[in-house]
């Protein structure tokens, strides 16, 4: 398969926010992050909503931005609690458990419309899929955000993340002053994988990166 061998797409990294709280409890995360939200707004927010919301808020999302949201398992704790609420299911937990809820918790709290929200899940190729979706958006600025929250009983079945983390990165077509770096996707021979947690580590540590991340695709991240 050589048809697409010349393809290269590139975006500039204008800003990056990462949150790697380690073994912090949900209660401690709430205490740490609540000052970033209006008083009373955090009462029904999830841990993931607080963390992704805080990272995304730092980038000041506007209605002309596109938001790509990446989370394999999303609202694991709300999902667990909703399932535990049967046979009298909770309407609040139902609406909070939907996949894009973390972004919606922030944006609804702000009453901030946005044209494009692209919520994704994924597996071993998740970094490639999320970056490809972000790069394909025609919006001048794409806010690629994501994260996971550590599950409890779902984790025992391999159906939730072991780690809690969040990130938000601002990607633009044109390089502006203060750019942090650039990211490219290039056609390449060979195969590789890069899941979301591993990609988060690359971003969090600002690692120079040039590896295959999917069959036929290489990702390069160059920090300035």
């Amino acid at each position, binding site marked *: 398969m050589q048809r697409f061998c010349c393809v290269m*797409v590139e975006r500039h990294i204008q800003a990056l926010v990462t949150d790697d709280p380690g073994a912090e409890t949900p209660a401690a995360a709430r205490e740490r992050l609540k000052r970033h939200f209006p008083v009373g707004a955090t009462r029904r927010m999830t841990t993931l909503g607080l963390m992704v919301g805080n990272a995304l808020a730092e980038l000041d999302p506007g209605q002309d931005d596109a938001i790509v949201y990446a989370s394999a398992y999303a609202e694991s704790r709300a999902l667990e609690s909703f399932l535990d609420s049967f046979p009298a299911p909770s309407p609040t937990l139902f609406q909070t458990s939907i996949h894009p809820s973390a972004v919606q918790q922030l944006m609804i709290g702000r009453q901030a419309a946005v044209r494009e929200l692209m919520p994704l899940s994924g597996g071993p190729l998740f970094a490639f899929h999320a970056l490809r979706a972000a790069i394909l958006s025609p919006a001048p600025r794409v806010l690629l955000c994501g994260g996971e929250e550590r599950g409890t009983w779902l984790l025992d079945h391999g*159906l939730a993340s072991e780690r809690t983390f969040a990130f938000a990165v601002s990607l633009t077509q044109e390089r502006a002053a203060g750019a942090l770096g650039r990211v490219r996707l290039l056609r390449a021979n060979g195969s590789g994988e890069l899941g979301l947690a591993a990609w988060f580590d690359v971003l969090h540590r600002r690692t120079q990166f040039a590896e295959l991340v999917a069959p036929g695709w290489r990702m390069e991240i160059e920090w300035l």
Partner: protein
Amino acid sequence: MADPAAPVRVAACGCITPFGDAAATHTALLRGECALRPVRILGREGGDAVPMALLPGRSLDETTPPEWVAAIRRLHGSIPDGDWGSPGRPVFVTGSNFGVGGLYALRRTGDASFASWSALPTCTERVRAELGWGPDVSIVSHACVSAHLGLLLATRVISERLADDALVLSFDFLSPFVAGGFHALKILNADFPAPYRVRDSGAIGLGDGAGFAVLSRGRGDWTLSCQSLHNEMYHFTSNRSDGSGFARCLEPVAAAARGRRVWFKGHGTGTLEAGQLEVGAAERAFPGAPIVGWKGSLGHTLGSCGIVELAIAIESVRAGRTPGTIGGAGRAMGHSVALESFENGSFDGVVCASNAFGGAHAAFLLCHG
């Protein structure tokens, strides 16, 4: 090799509903048939009976493997052969529930075997392996506009020449999880849905549904253009009361449809406020365009509805007749709501629209040729 300058087209499209494939579903809708039946929200555990349209022989209770896997296999049989999931032929799997019925069964019974088809990445990986696809399978989940987003991503991948063809597969099959959730929100109740009808209280029905679309550069008889999105971010489960969210999404589609005679395939679940806002916005954006909605028969197929109803819209144009809005009785919410089927030979476009939690809106213009 495809012409790199050729437009993105729908090369193939199909669906499965309780009536069967797209042709069988179209025929049943023309007859005014309703697939909804009273089903207890918790399956064998009981609960209130609410309108649901399950695939024939399927129960709301979970099995391992899930009963719906057979439906996915049947649908897969009508997808053109291709090296799906390879670098040049990516797949976009979309939905809102995936195997969430397995999570419900896992929690209620403690049987770990239910875990194997549940959760988004786990379920998608099992479907991928079952259908023999390669690894390039993206997962998109934005509640009931999920299918629209998959179509948009597939279009972009082809437009930007990262692929020649892309497959979008969308499915949602009902479970006590989703039935219980909508029942808790009180919009799924004992009443049957009457989309776009004036009545005292709103009600929706839920349905099993799955569909696919193969998008290709230059191949196919159908174009999807002006794929428009808007997210109100006003409330998790309601829209701005001025209808501006609907209008913002439809504006660019209306501009693209100028000079065409279109009909409007709406979302129309049976909720009152959203139905009224949608009809109002559609009548303003597309004056004179007949408005139809089919969820009064099929139920709301959730994340798959955008692609299931696309397949039925295509079948309607092929057959020359569009099914009317099914469900209930009484006055329509607007003069453009088509309660009866109509000949569509004089139309040259279909606007297909869907809505979702968070005030999410999606729409596109479907044209033949």
